[in-house]
């Protein structure tokens, strides 16, 4: 017997180890069984490993997700920035279009109600002399320009043509100290002369009698008596009036109707009055000319 056991020891043990769990299975297959003490010990002993691995996996997944989310947020942030920049550009462009639209409406209204034929012109340069406040425009002899033609914007009087080249002309602004414009007070029809006092300065009102009806805020318009400016064009508004106790004339300070100190206001459309109403040359003028090649 002992020899038999010794000879088949491995077979018996292996067989037992195979049959025993099958027997346990067959016993508990129908009704199940509770955890044994050994089961609980094993599970308790291995629980920290399970938790640690799960924790590490969660940490890795969280890190990866966090990284992925950051990547997504970063990409989204970049995209949103691009959109903001693009939209800001569009808003600015729309604002520009709106302002241009407004300006063109005013210009259109001005052209339609202008008292004389107008030739549109653009500022292409500024005078380099300190003694003369002048602009260069893109119209000249070829367009029918002559010296002493009036130059206007839709806001009012700008200056007069000083010298004319073939395709350009020099315009002396009303703000120049050599410039003068005969005016009327629109409200009272009192007469006077506005003269320039230099760049950035208000105009001065001269040759107006001390007893004339004029007050702050009055609009001064061209009188049309100089043969240059058509009558009724805004020159400026009275900023202050001084009536001396002695002498014939008063003096007043006039805020220009066109802000001549601001280049932007001049770099829009200007208009040259090619002929005054009633003159023989009025037939020569064209409101709109074909652009030169």
């Amino acid at each position: 017997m002992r020899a038999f056991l010794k000879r088949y020891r491995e077979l018996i043990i292996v067989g037992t180890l195979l049959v025993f769990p099958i027997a346990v299975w067959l016993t508990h297959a129908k009704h199940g069984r509770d955890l044994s003490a050994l089961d609980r010990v094993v599970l308790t002993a291995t629980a920290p490993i399970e938790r640690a691995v799960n924790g590490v996996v969660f940490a890795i997944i969280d890190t990866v997700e966090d990284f992925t989310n950051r990547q997504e947020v970063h990409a989204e942030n970049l995209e949103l920035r691009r959109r903001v920049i693009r939209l800001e550009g569009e808003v600015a462009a729309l604002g520009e279009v709106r302002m241009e639209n407004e300006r063109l409406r005013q210009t259109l209204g001005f052209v339609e109600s202008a008292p004389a034929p107008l030739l549109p012109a653009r500022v292409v340069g500024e005078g380099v002399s300190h003694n003369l406040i002048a602009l260069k425009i893109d119209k000249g002899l070829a367009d029918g320009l002559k010296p002493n033609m009036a130059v206007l914007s839709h806001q009012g009087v700008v200056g007069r043509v000083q010298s004319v080249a073939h395709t350009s002309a020099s315009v002396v602004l009303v703000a120049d100290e050599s410039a003068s414009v005969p005016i009327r007070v629109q409200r009272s029809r009192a007469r006077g002369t506005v003269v320039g006092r230099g760049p950035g300065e208000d105009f001065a009102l001269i040759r107006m009698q001390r007893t004339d009806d004029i007050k702050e805020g009055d609009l001064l318009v061209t009188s049309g008596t100089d043969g240059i400016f058509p009558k009724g064009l805004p020159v400026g508004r009275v900023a202050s009036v001084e009536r001396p106790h002695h002498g014939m004339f008063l003096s007043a300070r006039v805020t220009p109707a066109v802000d001549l100190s601001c280049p932007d206001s001049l770099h829009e459309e200007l208009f040259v009055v090619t002929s005054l109403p009633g003159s023989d040359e009025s037939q020569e003028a064209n409101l709109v000319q074909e652009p030169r090649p």
Partner: protein
Amino acid sequence: MKPFLLTAIAFVALPALSGLLPELNLTTARLDLHLPLIVFLALTGTGIEGAFGAFAIGYLVDVHSGHPMGLFLSASMFTYVLARLFAPVVEPRSRWSFAVLALLFDLAYGFFTLALAAMSPLTASGSASSVLLTAPLTALAAWLLWPLLALIERRKKRGERGALTLR
């Protein structure tokens, strides 16, 4: 020593796998991580020690299955015995051959488990497709475990080499 080491590996690896499975999202297939250990024991281990090792590993699987009723212990021992029967004619010498053997024995293990599970109303009987999907994953685990198992085998052989040792 080898069965003890492999049981220790199973002791660590099975709860680790248990902690990993929820994130792997393996709904149909499972990974029989213990099976390469049992096959390795059967093909390279001594009979009685290997049998106890396989028993211990099977028991750990059973406990970690959540339903310890002897099902996986029985299947593990069945696989061990089956592998022992093939041991005289099969020897894993490379990573790939071991992976293929693990795949074949895992199929046997899976279908044996299915057959046993069909006898119990308390255990989900599973399906043949899940067995077929599990086997390649187990082969992959065997492929990954091979360097460690080969190292254990080499150390064992070095310890057994020669009766005479220099002191």
